[in-house]
């Protein structure tokens, strides 16, 4: 579990951020911007896939964001910001070379020891591809440590797809069995149409598969129903949950799911550990 829990303990004031410089900005969709960042002191950001970062802009505030790149890719790290509120819109107005502030890594990432040596299925809905991309890249970079690797990706519309360069690679890759769908088609789309669960009949999954789910809150219970049908154990299902994580340190209370704090106990939980919590899924 050690790698899943790298904490930032070195500051006396746990709210003091570090400076990060924007190396590259891309705009994959109307609302989202993909930033590649580098710590201003040129040190590596040591994190585990699935951990989060409080990304801030002085004068505007902080928002919790999952790492969208793998720690196996050194020096820089990626985040994707959907411009929906005061902070995210201000961050999305920044350009390459600008500074912002980050606090982290925070929280509990994917339990890699539990995934290694097994078939892995990742089910990502919408912006849920961002935090899971840190794991996808990790698996692709250390492919030999894992067995079959299957990836499901669903978006509402084709134009909302993120990381289109990655998707092109994955479509033709032998390293990952990649399946994608959209809820609503458009004339450019020739692939599957339907919610993400319509991808399950397309592939035969072993009951011993380890599964990672990240997406909009409504998606989880439908995906878990499919996994139950396959006979996948709840200990082998990992959910990456979204909540309002104001401090990221297990203090402010906003992200509480019953007696768990999503920011420090999660955001990645085994379904067995939270499936019985009424407010989780």
């Amino acid at each position, binding site marked *: 579990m050690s790698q899943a829990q790298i904490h930032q303990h070195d500051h006396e004031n746990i709210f003091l951020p570090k400076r990060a410089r924007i190396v590259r900005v891309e705009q994959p969709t109307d609302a989202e911007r993909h930033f590649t960042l580098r710590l201003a002191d040129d040190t590596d950001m040591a994190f585990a896939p699935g951990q989060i970062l409080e990304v801030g802009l002085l004068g505007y505030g902080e928002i919790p964001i999952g790492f969208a790149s793998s720690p196996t890719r050194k020096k820089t790290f990626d985040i994707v910001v959907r411009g929906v509120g005061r902070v995210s819109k201000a961050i999305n107005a920044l350009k390459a070379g600008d500074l912002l502030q980050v606090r982290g890594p925070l929280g509990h990432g994917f339990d890699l020891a539990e995934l290694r040596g097994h078939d892995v299925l990742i089910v990502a809905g919408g912006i849920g591809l961002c935090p899971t991309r840190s794991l996808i890249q990790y698996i692709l970079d250390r492919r030999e440590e894992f067995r079959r690797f299957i990836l499901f990706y669903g978006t509402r519309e084709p134009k909302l797809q993120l990381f289109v360069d990655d998707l092109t690679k994955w479509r033709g890759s032998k390293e990952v069995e990649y399946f994608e769908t959209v809820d609503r088609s458009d004339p450019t789309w020739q692939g599957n149409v339907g919610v993400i669960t319509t991808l399950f009949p397309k592939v035969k999954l072993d009951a011993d598969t380890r599964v990672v789910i990240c997406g909009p809150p409504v998606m989880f219970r439908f995906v878990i129903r499919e996994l139950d049908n396959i006979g996948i154990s709840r200990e082998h299902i990992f959910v990456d949950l979204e909540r309002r994580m104001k401090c990221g340190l297990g203090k402010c209370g906003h992200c509480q799911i019953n*007696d768990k704090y999503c920011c420090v106990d999660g955001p990645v939980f085994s379904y067995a550990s939270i499936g019985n919590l009424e407010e989780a899924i």
Partner: protein
Amino acid sequence: MKASFLREADFKPWLAELMTTQRVVGPVARRSQFVFADLESADDVRLDYPCTILPPKKVFFPPVQDLVRFDGNKFEGCIKPVPTVLFGVHFYDVKAIDQTDLLFRERNADYNYLAQREATTIVASNIQQISQRAFWDSVGSEVEPKGHDAFLTKVDGGYLLETRTPRGEALLKQGSFRDASAAELDLARKVNQAVMGKCPEKLKASSKDIAWKVRAAFAKEDLWKGLAVDCFSCGSCNTVCPTCYCFDVQDHWNVDQKSGARVRTWDSCLTSEFAQITLATGGAENFRDERGERFRHRFMRKAAYLNSKLGGPACVGCGRCSAACTSDIADPVTVINKILEA
């Protein structure tokens, strides 16, 4: 540790002497109510207060607190503890401070709280008047208060001060104390025992039983909906609670639009946006959208969720929430007794 006696006539000179060397915060009267405030004169202190409007946690966890100050791209923390004596704290508020001490220290130690806490000497005092909504004698009796440095009891002719820590003992040097006799110590015990069992409200089960019974009532949607039907979602119950420690963090600009601060303010899980996140443009997901869900969350937190960590409930029976609630639906005694009967 050590019990000392201070004559009535020597009490105010002692307090005045303490005020010459450090900041002293104590209970003072504000019209018909009481508050913890910086003492300006030893004459202002009112150890006969039944309860204060806000709990003393504000000394370490202020309602509004700068966490980081910035100017352009430069920023710095603002932890600057001030040596303080927090004077005249009732035992239930000491128990609440013990909880916030633990919660701010665990996992990621928050020195924005802990630094001021560590710079504060707490002098607890006996309860001379009982608040009309208090129930501190029937909640969490398995938990002993332990965060105070000294305990002051008003007895005939003066005060008995029992010191528990070297910091508490240091207070003795600033007053005309003499060693207390066994009889005086015994008298103080009796004074403190005499108030137990006198609270006007009473929980009908032990905190352990309440914890599992409240937790087991989670799925009773109608019960929670009914309990919260008159809730205005104003968060007053949270604001006055000595064990609530949730907060919001927002950035504020100064008028120069260049400098400013990242500021923490008390927040309330009863308010409608507390657990809300923004999704796609215009959309939102609220994980506790209904009043009943938020009302339930508060009771789960007070009676069940934190118990294993705290060794007892996250409620100390001060009755502040009962008194503060606009529609008088927040009273833990009424609510919990109703759950026990349901």
